[in-house]
């Protein structure tokens, strides 16, 4: 293994941090009991996992075309992934997928059943 520069070592550290978050998110996707819990664990794959990997690639490669494309891709997935996660959660709730047995509160269903309050 050839000797690394200082920014390459920092980049590898941030990439390893992102891969650790990816692994934990996938473990949550396997282990948690419910669609909504799995969605909450799996969204951590985006905001710390793959965005961390792309920022590490930017620090590793510096101001090269690879680095600029990595920053562009980071902004793109940080904008689009919460939108798709929110749409999937709303669609799963509206199509009547049941929650886990341990669930104690469902504010979204209460807001849909009650009439909207005008004075706050």
């Amino acid at each position: 293994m050839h000797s690394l520069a200082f920014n390459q070592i920092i980049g590898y550290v941030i990439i390893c941090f992102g891969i650790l978050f990816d692994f934990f998110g996938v473990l949550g996707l396997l282990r948690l009991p419910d669609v909504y819990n799995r969605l909450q664990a799996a969204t951590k794959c985006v905001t710390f996992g793959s965005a961390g990997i792309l920022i590490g690639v930017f620090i590793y490669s510096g101001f090269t075309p690879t680095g600029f494309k990595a920053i562009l891709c980071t902004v793109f997935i940080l904008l689009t992934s919460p939108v798709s996660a929110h749409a999937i959660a709303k669609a799963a709730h509206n199509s009547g997928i049941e929650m886990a047995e341990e669930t104690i509160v469902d504010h979204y269903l209460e807001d849909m059943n009650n009439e909207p309050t005008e004075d706050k």
Partner: protein
Amino acid sequence: MKTFKWFIGLIIIVTLFILNFFVFFQEIDFSYKLINVLLFCSLFILMRVVKGPSVADRIVAIDILGVLIIGICALLSIALERSYYIDIGIAWGLQSFIGAMALAKFLEGRSLDA
């Protein structure tokens, strides 16, 4: 029984970690080992796609699989020293976003133009 299953899974994961980082692949670059970890995570996601009890589980799993593939493309671009592998990641992310939005609307029961 539940503790026993946890123990088996922990032994398998630690064994694969040691085999990946300290036994095999000693003569190749370090970034290929990180790609191996992400491919192993993709195998976990495919398990969720196969046995997910509802449709929303499968949609979530496919969405997260796209995000992991963006990370694999970024690591490939620094392993092979080519800059155009991240373009594949950007295109894959765009397709995954459009697919997830369309599947969510289809699951909710609405048509695509409403």
